[in-house]
C-alpha cells in the first residue's frame, strides 16, 4: 500500500515548483505517506490542511455546493493545494509561489485516483 501512495506522490512532486506532496487522513490529520523537501514539517502540513479543508467543506455543504473536490490556499511565498482521495484521504501539495496551479491540480487528481 505504501508503494502505491509513493508512486501517486511521484506524479505530483515531479511538477516544477512543487516542494512536497503527501497523503493525509482527513479525519485526524495524520500523515499516511509523504515526499517532502527538507524543512517542510509533514505533520504540521497534514494537521493544518485537514483542519482547514474540513472547515471549508462544512461551509460549502451548508451553502449547497456539495462536497469539495479541490482546495487552494494562496500565500505570499507559496501555496497549499489539496484534493480528496478515496477512504477518507487527502492528497496535498506544497508549492513555490510561481507554479503552474492547473498542472499541479491535474496531477493531484491523478494521484488521488491512483491512491484511492
Amino acid at each position, binding site marked *: 500500500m505504501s508503494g502505491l501512495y509513493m508512486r501517486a506522490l511521484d506524479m505530483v512532486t515531479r511538477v516544477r515548483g512543487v516542494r512536497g506532496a503527501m497523503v493525509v487522513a482527513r479525519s485526524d490529520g495524520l500523515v499516511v505517506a509523504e515526499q517532502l523537501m527538507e524543512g517542510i514539517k509533514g505533520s504540521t502540513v497534514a494537521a493544518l490542511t485537514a483542519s482547514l479543508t474540513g472547515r*471549508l467543506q462544512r*461551509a460549502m455543504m451548508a451553502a449547497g455546493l456539495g462536497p469539495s473536490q479541490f482546495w487552494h490556499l494562496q*500565500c505570499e511565498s507559496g501555496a497549499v493545494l489539496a484534493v480528496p482521495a478515496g477512504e477518507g484521504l487527502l492528497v496535498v501539495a506544497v508549492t513555490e509561489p510561481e507554479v503552474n496551479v492547473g498542472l499541479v491540480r491535474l496531477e493531484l487528481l491523478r494521484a488521488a485516483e491512483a491512491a484511492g
Partner: protein
Amino acid sequence: MSDDVKSLSGELARDPQSLVFLRLGELLRQRRQFDTATRVALHGLERHAHLADAHDLYARILADRHDYEHAFDEWDMTLRIAPHHTGALKGLAFLYFKVGDLTQAEAHLQAAHRIAPDDPTIGQAFAVIRGEAGLSGEVPAEALPTAESLAPIPEPRVFAGLEGAQEGLLLLDGAGMVLGGALKTADGDDVTETVAAYLAGVSHEATRTARLLGLGDWRGLSAEGQSGHVHVGQPTTESMLLVMRDRSVPLGRLSLLAQRAAQAARRWLERQR
C-alpha cells in the same frame, strides 16, 4: 443571586467575548431584573454588534420596560441582520398590536409562521390578535404582505453594482458576524448565517497554516465543490469576504471577481469608520 445567574455571570467574567451573555440577559429579563439585564445586553452588543440575537435580547428588555420606540428600533435592526429572525418578527407583531395596527401585527406573525410553522407561541399570538380584531378563520394568504415586502429597507449595499451582489457575496467581521451581502442556495434558501458560522474559524486556520509552513500571509482560499466554487479572502485584516458562484464560473474568473468585491468591501468598510 441564584446559582444560574452566578454561574453564567462567572462564565462571562472569565470570557467577556462569550455568547453566554444571551442566556444570562434572558434569565435576568425573565426575573424582571431589568437594570442588570440591560447592562448584560449592552455589554454583549458592544462586543457583538452584528449578532441578531443580541439585538433581539435588548429589544425584549426594552419592550418589558415599555420603551416600545427603542424596542422597535432594536427588532428592526435584528431583521436587517437576520431577515428570518422569528423572535424579531414576533416582537414587531407585538408592538404593532400594542399600537392597534392589527394588519401589520398579523402580517408579521404570518411571516414568522412561514419560517417556524411549528412554533406554538405564534398560534397563541394569532389567537390574541384575532380576538382583538374580531376576526374569524384564516386570513387569505394573498391578502397579506409577503415576507419580502416586510423586509426592512436595505442599508447601502456593500457590493452594489457587482455581479451576483444579492446572493453570492458575503462580508464578515473577524468574529464571523455578517457585515453585508447574502448567500442563497440554488433552491433559494437563505444560508447566510449558517455559512458565516462555519467560516468564522477559516481565517484563523488559514493564517496558522500559512505562517507555520513559512509561506507568509495568506492571500486567498479557493475551493471547487460539486455544484459550485467559492473564494475566501481578507479585504482587511479584520474582515473576511466569501464569493460563491456555480460551476459555470471557473476558479480563475472567480478570483478576479473576488478582487473586485474585496475593493468594494474595503471602500464600504472605510465609509463605516
